[in-house]
């Protein structure tokens, strides 16, 4: 089903997103379907402009992922992975739209049901604990900061509340999935440009006689463009960053989207074993170097024959090269 999404023009009016953006959202969906563990793929595009392309592909990928996923399997896996944590591991606990610091104490039997036991108050002040049932397990997330001291009486930090735009596009069931931080996509590009496209421009869905508004970051959840405690679905790496980036938590199903030649040329060696989408703007100064790299990569790859994408009519001005390799 096509996404009937609107965007807000600078003049203030709402317009249906153009056909080219629908093409890139659908391209993202198509590529996400090929995101299996056994094959690694690369999709490279040369375009007359790169702006907004990477975020729209990202929206397509995530909508494909969320539409076919269910939270039930995730809950079980998440509960099991929390159960295996060491005692006093710092965690975040989401409660009443606030996020609290906590430490994991273990798994305990509570009225015949296995529950996670966490402590949200310093022992000196009383050591308040809470029992978390399996169905609420997603409210607990690992806190990467190892040296956490529990406060005496914490109110918690405000966190991003659920987005109605996300519910409309990904479905209400995605709320649970979105609580689990995961690097499904990693954007590599210019910070100023991507941040402005993802966080500033307003988009909307028309539902129940009203506009349900939000930014693309309500959908993409880029870690670097939101509060640090909010669970993320995507990450961002600057094209110009030096190579001592923090751990991006990439998995075999993570997808790298390079927005522009510079990012691709700078980071290609670091992400060479990951599924990649390379968006190249033909008016960029480094464009021809990047194309040369792509062509060399294609020629040298151990690609599987007849790998083809199932695409609808393509807007003008696009060149696409796609191939799959066995991992």
């Amino acid at each position, binding site marked *: 089903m096509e996404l009937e999404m609107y965007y807000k023009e600078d003049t203030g009016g709402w317009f249906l997103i153009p056909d080219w953006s629908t093409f890139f959202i659908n391209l993202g969906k198509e590529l996400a379907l090929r995101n299996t563990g056994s094959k690694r793929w690369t999709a490279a595009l040369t375009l007359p402009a790169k702006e907004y392309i990477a975020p729209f592909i990202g929206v397509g990928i995530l909508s494909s992922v969320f539409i076919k996923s269910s939270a039930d399997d995730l809950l079980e896996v998440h509960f099991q992975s929390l159960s295996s944590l060491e005692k006093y591991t710092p965690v975040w606990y989401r409660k009443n739209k606030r996020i609290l610091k906590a430490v994991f104490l273990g798994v305990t039997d509570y009225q015949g049901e296995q529950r996670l036991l966490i402590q949200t108050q310093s022992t000196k002040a009383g050591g308040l604990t809470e029992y978390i049932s399996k169905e609420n397990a997603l409210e607990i997330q690992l806190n990467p900061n190892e040296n956490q001291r529990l406060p005496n009486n914490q109110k918690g930090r405000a966190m991003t509340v659920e987005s109605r735009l996300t519910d409309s596009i990904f479905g209400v069931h995605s709320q649970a999935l979105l609580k689990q931080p995961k690097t499904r996509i990693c954007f590599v590009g210019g910070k100023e440009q991507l941040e402005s496209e993802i966080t500033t421009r307003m988009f909307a869905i028309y539902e129940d006689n009203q506009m349900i508004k939000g930014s693309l970051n309500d959908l993409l959840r880029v870690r670097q463009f939101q509060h640090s405690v909010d669970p993320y679905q995507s990450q961002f790496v600057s094209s110009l960053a030096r190579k001592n980036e923090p751990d991006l938590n990439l998995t075999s199903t993570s997808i790298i989207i390079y927005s522009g030649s510079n990012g691709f040329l700078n980071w290609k060696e670091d992400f060479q074993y990951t599924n990649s989408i390379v968006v190249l703007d033909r008016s960029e100064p480094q464009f021809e170097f990047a194309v040369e790299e792509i*062509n060399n990569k294609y020629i040298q790859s151990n690609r599987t024959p007849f790998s*083809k994408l199932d695409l609808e009519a393509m807007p003008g001005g696009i060149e696409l090269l796609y191939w799959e390799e066995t991992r």
Partner: protein
Amino acid sequence: MNTLSSVSKLFELASNYNLRFHEVSSKPLAEYSLSLKKLEYQILNQDEGDILLNDLLTHFRKFRFILSASPLPFSAHSELINSKDLNRLSRQCQLMYQDLKKDIDTVLETYEALRNSPEKPVLDFLRENFKDKRSTGLVLKTANDLNAVEEVLKRTFLWDKSFSVVTPSKLKKSFFFDRLIILGPTYWYPDYLFHCPRSSSIEIILYDWQSYHTPRMEYFTKSHSPISSLLQGCNIHMRNTNDIDYRELIEVSDQIIDYKKIEKSIANRPALTATEYVSAKLIGLADAKGIFFEDHSIKNIWTISMQSKEPILKCSVNELDTDSYLLIRTGTGRDYIQIKADEFIGNRAEKMRHRHYVWKKRLRKYTAKYPAEKICFYLRKHGGTRVNKINLRNWASDDNIKPREYNDFLALMKLVKFEDHAEKLWKEAEDLFRAHHRAGMVIRKLLIQEIKKSNLGKLELEQKMTFHLPDSEDATFTAYKIEYISQNVFQVEPHQLRALIDFNHLGGQ
């Protein structure tokens, strides 16, 4: 940065736009170009690397390029080449190469006919074919005098204020036109002008004797499942070539100077007799200029880049690219940063600089005498922590004031036998470094102010622009388009570094 609506417009245009090739004619210019081509062949057949012949060809080629790239009447470029110099050079060449006499004469005759000709084929064509009032961008490869071009266009298209000169870099941003007119063959321009369309009508005008190519429309290598809509939306209308009676079409290169020949002549100079020399790279600049920069990794070359948000970037010689403009101080004989830094230091500056010069010179004596590996080994043995060949080359250069760490400096002082004065010299080097840094900041700030006030489109077309620093009468910086970056390393005397070379008169020097 394109907005969402610009991207929409780009995709809309890319789905359906026209690329039309048009021809203009000028018999005198065709005859000049063909006679020059013949002369080039004759010289090539003789396999003569003579610098005088090369100078002569450079002048002739420049005239051909400017005339075929300009919408102005031919006579508007009569001052472009000094006729006296050209005649003198022609006579010298004719005396030296008797068998070229006739060919040189033919070119000179056709040159003279063009120099004073009021003919203006491009302007006439524009006036005749684009009479409507659609907003039109005229893309030029170069303009010796942008103001003159704009003035003539204003007079020609008096009724149409929407006719303007536009540069390729502006067509990367949010500019769209009802019509784009591109003067010259496609290979003069970046490909994106032709496949990232900023107009639904792209009209390419070139002379009927000029060879041309259709722009590149395929970038990815052949694959099993090629997917491209690049040509799908582009309707190419080729020119009608039936009535051309010229024997051959000529490719007019926008690079006038034959840099390979220049490099060869520099390499073949007599051996250096100077006591001191440095390794340097040659950079070819617009306006037939060149400059040597020491081959090291110090980022001390100022450039203007149209692609970057920062108006001025600092690069090392190996980071320069042909899309940038080199900023060179042109007003004063001495480095303006040095002058400003000395002002900050005060009376001590002269003596400090002398002492600094002495240890640098002694260090260069060592680096010239002993292999770099041996010196590096010595420095490491004496406590140097960041010693490697590149750093050693940087430390020996006048472009670098001091190593970052005292340990390395002390090791250098031990090498040059100034160990007893190491602390004092280090303190002075630190003072110099701070003063240079401060001076650099001040000058950069002033330059940025001037650059922001300027029309950089003019720089893009004229390929050269001078900026006057507001707080000094004679301090000027000139930006030159970088045309060529040599991959070879030459041995030059220190005073030859950062001094402008005029390639027009190499034969006379």
